[in-house]
């Protein structure tokens, strides 16, 4: 299991702020995880469409599509940040 967190616009579009998920074993990096989440359709497909500016953090450090993840990791998806 991994913990997925959603913030800001993504949290509102998906209607949840977090979930426990069990992607298939062959899904081992962020690019594959996003593809798997897109297959849920609707808001997932729209918000995570290729080219949309989605940021990902693995265990609270910024990640790229090539970043691997493992069982027990905390993976957060969010739009580009707008603080300050």
């Amino acid at each position, binding site marked *: 299991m991994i913990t997925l*967190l959603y*913030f*800001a616009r993504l949290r509102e579009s998906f209607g949840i702020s977090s979930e426990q998920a069990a992607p298939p074993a062959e899904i081992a990096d962020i690019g594959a995880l996003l593809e798997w989440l897109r297959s849920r359709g609707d808001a997932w497909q729209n918000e995570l469409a290729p080219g949309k500016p989605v940021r990902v953090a693995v265990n609270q*450090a*910024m990640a790229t599509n090539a970043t691997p993840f493992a069982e027990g990791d905390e993976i957060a998806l*969010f*739009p*580009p940040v707008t*603080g*300050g």
Partner: protein
Amino acid sequence: MVRVQNEDFDVGAEIAELRRDNARIGALACFVGLVRDLNEDDSVSEMSLEHYPGMTEKALAEIVAQARLRWEIADALVIHRIGTLKPTDQIVLVATTSAHRHEAFASCEFIMDYLKTQAPFWKKEQTAQGARWVDARESDDTARQRWNA
């Protein structure tokens, strides 16, 4: 030091504490970000700030650590507010101290430029047309990238 809080902050008190009893400090630079009542031609009546607890503090501490690698700064303070804010409210305080002004000015601006693009905060504005998430600005990315030159 890094703090994320709902409460307002007293700039004078924070600065006094930051430089207290340290006679090696010859310069103190300070930036305060404020809520405006206008964004992209729409009036803004209220703003809410969301963040990623845990990662926010780590990201801000990392930005301060990066600034310390570049400049000799005595101390740095970052306070960022979350929750509901109104026009004229203070949002963020960055203060840095050093022996001379260049290090203080530069590190303060560096921390702010990185905060704008790296720290996980998101703003949602309440306007006459309804609520909307604030879009990231390309000019903020440009401001950060110039430090890599």
